[in-house]
């Protein structure tokens, strides 16, 4: 009953649950998006096990690819990607103005 594929699917499904909980709990937004991405990748592997490779491809392209890219862009726009760098840059630009 417990052949290799069943055990693998159970491991992947439990990983999905861990990912879903971790996405809500994590404080760092960048890490959250990365976990979200890994959720999609694992989900696409599960689609292959469920014998629907077309869905697997779509999940990998949309869930892991485009959606996370959009998230990254938004994080960059609102300045949440890495705050330390941003502050430093602002400081640099101010100093440049002073010099001028």
């Amino acid at each position, binding site marked *: 009953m417990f052949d290799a594929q069943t055990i693998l699917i159970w491991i992947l499904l439990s990983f999905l649950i861990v990912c879903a909980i971790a996405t809500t709990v994590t404080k760092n937004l960048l890490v959250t998006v990365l976990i979200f991405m890994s959720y999609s990748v694992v989900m696409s592997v599960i689609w292959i096990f469920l014998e629907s*490779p077309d869905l697997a491809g779509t999940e990998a392209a949309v869930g892991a690819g485009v959606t996370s890219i959009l998230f990254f862009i938004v994080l960059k*726009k609102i300045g949440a990607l890495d705050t330390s760098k941003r502050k430093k*840059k602002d400081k640099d630009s101010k100093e440049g103005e002073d010099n001028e």
Partner: protein
Amino acid sequence: MSDSTNHENHENHGNAFVAWVNGEPKPEVEKKEPKPKVKKQKKPFDSAEAYAKFHKLYKPACVILCLAFIAVLVYVSIKTPLFGVTDAPTNNEVAAKYIEEGLEDTGATNIVAGMILDYRAFDTLGESTVLFTAVMAVIILLKVDKDKKKKQDMSAAELKEEAILQHEEELNDKHRDVILKKTAGVIAPFILMFGIYVVLNGHISPGGGFSGGAIIGAGLILISQAFGSKITKRFFNFKVFTIITSGALLTYAALKTYSFYTGAHHMETGIPKGIAGAILSGGFILPLNICVGLIVACTMFGFYSLFSKGEI
């Protein structure tokens, strides 16, 4: 003193009652004066206190709501038939018909493509329209209006922000990540080719317009990210985007709403189905797949472009 007046009052009432019983008109009972309401002094609204109150309630409410939802979901999922059981209510004559006669009816080896683009092509038209509408909404929200964007009208902060953005872009153009550039140069053509393959073979092998379009869109995003938006702008600007998206949607509608004019039995309209398994087979499924793929690819790339730069 007050006692005596009360007593008198009582006696008066008693007499009046006796008189009323004897047939006199109803005496006017003295109206009780309403007690002057003691107005509760309203406390001035204290936002900190309200916040503390809310915060106290917030966590227990969250936990209770979550537990309730989890209980409902678990209950429902226990009640649903098990995965892959043959006597589940979904395994009815509809699925049997699709599997048995799908190839004959639609000419597509991939039954899923035959289903979504022939039996239920109208649903797919709706899905494509949803994507189109989403892109339009994003354009309305995020596209930078060039007429309004004049330097005189902008405030100092906006000007500064734009200067920073421009500076960043220039820096990015100058010092593009070498690893990303080289890797993208190698794999991007293969990604695009694989996407086109998935779209064109949608009726033969797993895949179809949506997956292929998403892969093409992701490949375009990769190119734009690695080599700068100037490269993609050469062949993909706002005009091209508009023409492709609306043209593909209109073509889809024209190809698939012919069943409105020919009646419900649109399977027998004389469109050649071809040999099953060949590229040119399956009636209208191939052109419909191409239309859906174009819409999805444009949507994906349009989202990326609008989100990152505010223009296509």
